């Protein structure tokens, strides 16, 4: 999900290469060390230092005269990388989902690429799956059986994800058309 969300921003060609490189590094490190995270991934001090760095980059981008959307794109990309690195125990992954959603929203503002709609549909499928599994894991943890969530990942859950994605897209299309008509009618030119 995070990778797809980042891809939507990368296709806008508004992010500098070093931001993409840092994001990729964060993906690789977090994936490679997911079973045995190094100490800096669990240290609040290190993670806060990274956060200060991200905030500085965002402010600097804004002061350089970039549009707010681009500065926010810097922020969401780097913050997502940091969130992936953060290996401290947490209750839910909603922050990660929110950051990914913000990236998609920003990307929709920053691009008119033909790749965006297919990426959006892939994002929808991944976010549906992430939220389904995350909700089950959260509920299982709350009920005192954290291992139960993995047992519940059965074929019917995958089927449900596929069905939900198709249903979302088919439900979204009429609304989107309606929105466009209204917008066109409201425009003075």
């Amino acid at each position, binding site marked *: 999900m995070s990778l797809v969300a980042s891809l939507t921003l990368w296709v806008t060609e508004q992010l500098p290469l070093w931001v993409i490189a840092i994001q990729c590094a964060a993906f690789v490190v977090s994936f490679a060390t997911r079973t045995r995270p190094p100490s800096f991934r669990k240290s609040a001090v290190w993670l806060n230092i990274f956060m200060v760095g991200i905030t500085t980059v965002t402010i600097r981008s804004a002061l350089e005269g970039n549009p707010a959307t681009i500065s926010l794109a810097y922020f969401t990309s780097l913050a997502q990388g940091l969130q992936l690195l953060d290996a401290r125990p947490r209750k839910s992954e909603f922050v990660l989902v929110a950051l990914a959603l913000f990236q998609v929203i920003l990307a929709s503002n920053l691009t008119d690429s033909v790749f965006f709609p297919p990426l959006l549909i892939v994002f929808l499928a991944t976010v549906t799956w992430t939220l389904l599994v995350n909700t089950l894991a959260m509920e299982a943890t709350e009920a005192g059986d954290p291992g139960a969530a993995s047992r519940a990942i059965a074929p019917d859950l995958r089927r449900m994800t596929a069905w939900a994605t198709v249903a979302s897209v088919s439900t979204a299309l009429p*609304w989107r058309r309606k929105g466009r008509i209204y917008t066109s009618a409201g425009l003075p030119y």
Partner: protein
Amino acid sequence: MDPERDRRPGSDPALSRSRRRFRPPRKLRATRAGWCFIAIIFGVGFAALNTGNNLLYLVLALMLAFLVLSGLLSEASLRGISVRRRLPRELFAKSENRVVLRVQNDQTRIASFAISLEDQIESEKGPETVGRGFALRVGPGESADRSYVFAPERRGDLRFDRIRVSTRFPFGLFVKSLELEAEESLLVFPEIQTIRGPSEVPRAGFDAEQRLGHARRGDDVAGLREFLPGDGLGRVNWRRSLHAGRLLVGEREGEASGEVEVLLRRPDGASEAVLEAAISRAASEIVAHLASGLRVGLRTPVARFAPAEGSLHRRELLTHLARMTRESLQRADASPVRSEPSAGRARRVAGEPLRSRRAGGMPA
């Protein structure tokens, strides 16, 4: 405990009754993540309207579709769910009792996910959750047993109310719940304390007393007791009866072998806690002595039960103690003590003052 799930409006019994009548079939509450999602939808909506950006519209439409989908999937999870409660045969106050909730998914195709169950009882403050259960997945046509430990606070009648079934499935944005009617009444017996043996039983005291009948043999008269329906006239001790002003029957040694009568005195002016302790002590003695094979009777200011044994008799004595109130004790002062024949047993109520029997002598 989940505060988001527990949050509910204040409850007044009359209000809750009218609420029950007009209750919607489902309740929906947004979680914190759900409120954030709704706020983002509004933000994206404003942005889409102001900019006229097609892709923003697409994102907005997908977010709205996500909301609709969340409603559909959560409904699919709750539809066809039925819950049956299985209560223990006997429920004792302040002791751990296991209550089983059987969740059944009656749907033929769709599995139910992340089903949370809350069992509720009726209390003075309104419906009160006493136990929870959770089923991560209940397949189509399948059932799952979940249990919880319930320790009732006090003895007396207990009314189980509804079972609340809720789910955060699929995206954790909303908690959808439905309330299933599962009213059931049960009597909670008094708290049972550990009694190690007859020697541990207090010989005298404020709360409960007992009399041990020793295994004696012979035809000597061991004591006197009140005449009961079923006693032959030949057994009436006329001289003593005239003296006492009521019919008394001579009890022979051997007849009272292995018998105990638990006496519960009326605690004058004592606090509720003392009364509860006395009732609990009496119930504990009844259970302990019956378990050790003795025939047990009960004498309270309200009623007298003849010594007997068996599960029916045990239940009868415990039921009497479970329903005893201070008011009923006060009312009993004005009326004579009832004699309760025990079900299917010999109708014999142990006689006069306990101390005279304990000493083994016949009252003069």
